[in-house]
């Protein structure tokens, strides 16, 4: 690997931007495709698929055998609300490989006793969220049921273009939430991005089951191609 390519790849990784290294395994020729350049690449379909799966693999193109090495950032999950569901959700998400952080200004909720080993930030979203570097590789869930906490958190998630945004609450609660967020400047397209009621409809009852339905929904959004994603939602 040429040093220039390695340097560029490390810069993309440090910035948490995905990239794919394409290697002709016959002769060692290589090129790095940054995510911003996927759309204009001749291998775009293959690049998109491999990245979505987070999986490296081989393709044949133009008589060449190419190895596509996928470098995708570790996905993050930010949970706003140190509630009962979060106690089940945090360890489950971690077992799926997410970097998990729980945010809740209410110190009685955000206590290490309730969340052993999980990074906790007992601050209001305005203070807690900016240092977390929420980005397009972040899933974001707001589950406090308290608009004072959930609403500013959701506005932050819109701004940072999270790949998944979910919020707890019935359709009725969600309609009211939409009105409040619009009044604070959110666009209809932002509101439409919120998965609410949160989680896949699997008849979840207990906090742990709801955690499973949330992680199933996040997984579907992360892994499924756009069309199948719509069908699953």
């Amino acid at each position, binding site marked *: *690997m*040429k*040093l220039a390519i*390695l*340097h560029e*790849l*490390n810069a993309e*990784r440090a910035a948490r931007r995905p990239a794919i290294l394409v*290697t002709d*395994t016959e*002769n*060692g020729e290589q090129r790095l495709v940054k995510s911003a350049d996927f759309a204009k690449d001749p291998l775009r379909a293959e690049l998109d698929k491999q990245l979505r799966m*987070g*999986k*490296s*693999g*081989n393709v044949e193109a133009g008589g060449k055998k190419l*190895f596509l*090495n*996928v*470098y*995708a*950032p*570790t*996905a993050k999950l930010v949970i706003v609300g140190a509630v009962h569901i979060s106690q089940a959700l945090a360890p489950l998400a971690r077992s*799926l*490989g*997410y970097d998990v952080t729980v945010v809740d200004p209410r110190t009685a909720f955000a206590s290490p006793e309730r969340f052993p080993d999980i990074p906790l930030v007992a601050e209001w979203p305005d203070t807690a969220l900016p240092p977390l570097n929420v980005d397009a590789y972040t899933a974001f869930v707001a589950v406090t049921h308290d608009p004072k906490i959930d609403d500013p958190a959701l506005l932050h998630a819109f701004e940072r273009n999270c790949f998944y945004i979910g919020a707890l609450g019935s359709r009725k609660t969600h309609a009211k939430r939409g009105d409040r967020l619009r009044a604070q400047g959110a666009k209809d397209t932002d509101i439409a991005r919120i998965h609410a009621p949160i989680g896949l409809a699997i008849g979840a009852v207990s906090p742990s089951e709801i955690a499973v339905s949330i992680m199933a929904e996040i997984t579907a959004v992360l892994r499924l191609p756009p069309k199948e994603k719509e069908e699953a939602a």
Partner: protein
Amino acid sequence: MLDRDEDILKAAEDWQKAGRGVALATVVETWGSAPRPAGSSLVINDEGTFLGSVSGGCVEGAVVTEAMDVIQSGKPRMLEFGVADETAWNVGLSCGGTIRVFVEKVG
């Protein structure tokens, strides 16, 4: 999930910049129950120091030896390991899988 190779590529760059000869070994294909998935990698310098793994310990020794040659020659090579391999008795994969490892010089 995607947290592999955390320090490996950084080490590759740092070692190269410090004037060391460096090679990168990457699993490019697996069959059967291979211990580490395609994309897993190992970085080696000319002192024989290495970071990362391509098989969880089964064939690293052989990969490091080959990598030394690649650092010398500058020419990439493809290695294959598996139970069907003649060298299986020495460095085969006990899990019964087969892996192909691409070894290239850095820089």
